[in-house]
């Protein structure tokens, strides 16, 4: 099957999102659709998926012109859109999920669970997937959920699958699993449109690439002919840096030390961080790093261990207390944990600091706006009115607003959990700049990330976790992707090579 989208135009209100974009995909190829947030990727795919209607232009399938007025029409043609937020029902087993909306019935009209189970097993066998179809979806990790969605698409005989950032919440191991699946699909002559911000993955799995910028197609071609540098330049329109950013800084006194910290998610954690340091914490999914730092922030319970701030032992029972003690925590999964969608931009940027410019609980509006206006410039926020909803911003700018609320609290210890998740290349660099500037201002910064490259670029040293244990600490030469991955998969540091271990 070959699908061609020709000279597609689309505007929302006055805002022209797509300016005569043409795009094509055929069976058996994996095409990367690249671009910063707001470049028009989602809109283009939503038009293909029948969610939005184009203003002008036309779509052909195998040469015949078609229109997709609803998602169902698009699906019937064989196009399946796998959204970033997976559409699975957690409290049903896999095989029932596979048949949602097109359940198999017995002749009595009741669900034919047996046949559904058998067909799912058959599907998994064909696809070489080692999963028990009777497992509840809530017990699966994100990669398997992704795989279940893909299988579901395959069962409806999808010939084109759109995958919207399928790997953002996956660890490297899981990504491998999804990639393997994608290769299988390719062999079966399915076309895949792969939307991602991770250029390394694009280089690895894709055949072709198409880059959108500000609603126009700026580059396309074979992946073999380009480098990641080329691609990121196409995406942002200028050269992007990739050199390490960490440099010599004045290191102050110890800010945080934990001893033997233990909970369900992690065990016996010891480490410390000094003012002006940037420490990375990484690992694979299930390593417990988010839980560890949420506990330090007072959002989760600890069963044993001690926390010291500035050398004094503290007991932190709530996030409110943690903030008072100068700890800030920027959570992962912005949409679930950080964005308050019913509040405007300025309130989202100042929810933590309201008490500092209010009198008896009454907010001083003038001061509120003054403070935010300064921040807005410093963070290079691209936004409309102060009172626009936070959801009107692109992912990168949303993240900057969330960062703003913590910076306004002038913390001594800043914990950033996946700070560049779902953020485009340009905004990523802005966030790195902010991190480095904060360290220069003598703030202790902890960066939690699943991307080893990010840690290596920004951090002075890195802690690697594995299944709730602190597996090792790396710095300098030893802080490379290979060593980090070795530790993150449960390997030990070889002391003879000069790499030091935290446990010594």
């Amino acid at each position, binding site marked *: 099957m070959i699908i061609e989208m020709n000279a597609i135009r689309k505007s929302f209100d006055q805002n022209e999102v797509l300016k005569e974009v043409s795009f094509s995909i055929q069976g058996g190829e994996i095409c990367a659709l690249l671009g910063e947030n707001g470049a028009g990727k989602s809109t283009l795919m*939503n038009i293909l998926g029948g*969610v939005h209607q184009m203003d002008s232009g036309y779509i052909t399938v195998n040469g015949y012109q078609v229109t997709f007025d609803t998602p169902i029409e698009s699906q019937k043609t064989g196009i399946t859109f796998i959204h970033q937020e997976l559409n699975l029902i957690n409290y049903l087993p896999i095989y029932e999920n596979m048949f949602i909306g097109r359940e198999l019935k017995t002749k009595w009209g009741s669900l034919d669970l047996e046949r559904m189970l058998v067909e799912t097993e058959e599907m998994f066998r064909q696809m070489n997937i080692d999963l028990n179809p009777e497992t509840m979806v809530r017990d699966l990790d994100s990669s398997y959920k992704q795989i279940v969605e893909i299988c579901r698409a395959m069962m409806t005989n999808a010939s084109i699958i759109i995958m919207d950032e399928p790997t953002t919440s996956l660890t490297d191991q899981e990504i491998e699993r999804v990639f393997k699946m994608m290769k299988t699909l390719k062999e079966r002559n399915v076309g895949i449109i792969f939307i991602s911000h991770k250029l390394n993955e694009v280089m690895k799995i894709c055949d072709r690439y198409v880059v959108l910028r500000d609603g126009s197609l700026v580059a396309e071609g074979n992946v073999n002919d380009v480098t990641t540098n080329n691609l990121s330049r196409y995406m942002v329109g200028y050269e992007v840096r990739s050199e390490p950013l960490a440099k010599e800084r004045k290191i102050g006194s110890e800010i945080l030390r934990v001893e033997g910290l233990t909970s369900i998610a992690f065990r016996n954690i010891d480490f410390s961080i000094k003012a002006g340091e940037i420490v990375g914490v990484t690992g694979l999914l299930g390593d417990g790093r988010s839980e560890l730092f949420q506990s330090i*922030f007072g*959002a989760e319970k600890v069963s044993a261990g001690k926390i010291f701030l500035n050398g004094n032992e503290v007991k932190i029972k*709530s*996030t*409110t207390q*943690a*903030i008072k003690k100068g700890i800030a*925590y920027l*959570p992962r999964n912005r949409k*679930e*944990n*950080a*964005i*308050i*969608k*019913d*509040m405007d931009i300025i*309130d989202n940027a100042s*929810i*933590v600091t*309201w*008490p500092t410019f*209010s009198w008896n*609980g*009454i*907010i001083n*509006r003038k001061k509120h706006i003054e403070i935010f206006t300064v921040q807005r410039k410093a963070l290079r926020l691209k936004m409309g009115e102060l009172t626009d909803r936070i959801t009107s911003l692109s992912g990168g700018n949303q993240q900057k607003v969330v960062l703003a*609320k913590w910076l306004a609290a002038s913390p001594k210890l800043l914990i950033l959990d996946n700070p560049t998740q779902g953020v485009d290349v340009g905004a990523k660099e802005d966030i790195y700049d902010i991190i480095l500037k904060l360290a220069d201002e003598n703030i202790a910064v902890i960066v939690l990330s699943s991307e080893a490259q990010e840690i290596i670029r920004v951090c002075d040293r890195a802690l690697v976790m594995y299944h709730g244990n602190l597996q090792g600490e790396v710095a300098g030469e030893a802080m490379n992707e290979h060593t980090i991955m070795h530790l993150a998969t449960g390997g030990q540091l070889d002391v003879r090579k000069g790499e030091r271990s935290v446990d010594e």
Partner: protein
Amino acid sequence: MSNSSEVKRQNVFQWFANKWTREPLFSTAIALIIMVILQTLVLGFDYDSFGSWFQAWINNWINILRNNAGIGIIALGMTLVIMTGGIDLAVGSTLVATGALAMMLLDTGTKGLLGMLGITGIPAFLLTIVLVLVFGYLLGSLIGVSITKGKVPPFIATLGAMMIFRSVTQHFMQGYNPKVPTEFLQIASFKLGNYMIMPILYWAFIAYVLYYVSKRTIFGRQIIAVGSNERAARLSGVDVERVKLKVYALMGLLVSIAAVIQVSRIGSMDFSNAGRGMEMDAIAAAVVGGTSMMGGRGLILGTVYGMLIIAVMNNLLNLFGVPPFLREAFKGFIVICAVLLQKKEKTS
């Protein structure tokens, strides 16, 4: 020439469409204006002079507003409760419980609590008001504690409280008919000029205070944060439990104010029927005014409009002579229509 007027019409239409989609209060206000025009028409112009027509119109309005002041105040609190993502079904029963306390304290008979202590007149009234408000606040806090500390879902906690408060009140007030001193009735019946508008003034004052609280205070903003994304609010250092507790306590306080108004307006209370269905009316007013049952979104002013829309409609049905049993159906119809007309959150 015709072309330019065409353009102008286009602009007016666009302005209207823009307002309709962008401003949540706009559609509610339009609906209210339509209702008021309808009501004016139905009231008719069959009067000797403009003066007497205007007098009748004003009197009708004062009646509507006064009759709805109590429930109007409760609807304001309900808006805040719903904005946190909760609900309070116990308002009617809290009204009866606090009203019963007021009457027991004030009773001019032999069993009057304050009378037994020898406190009468203005001090007794003031003491009664203070005690009743404190009692309402405590009952609200009790619900709040079971929701925040006991982690009972608001629907269940307040459903339970609804049954408990009324049943206990009825038990204790069995065969007891307290008489409220007539001077106490002045609280609601005091005439400003020729008009009995005190309850309307209380309502307006409380609406203004809550409007200010919701727009300009940390507490008001935290309500939105908690209702919109509880987890994000907690991770931003908002004491979610405290915000919820305060909202339910405030709800109890507002109900007790409504109870004082009701007791001072009528001088008596039917403990088995007063306030029944009140929770639904309050929720309806909030919803018609644009409050989202999902939490996070709501407007104090919208609830005032919503209450007025429902009140004017009741008045209209009265003027039209619609059979009483059918009136609820119209109310239900209005609530559903209001939500149909409101701007929907985009799902994609």
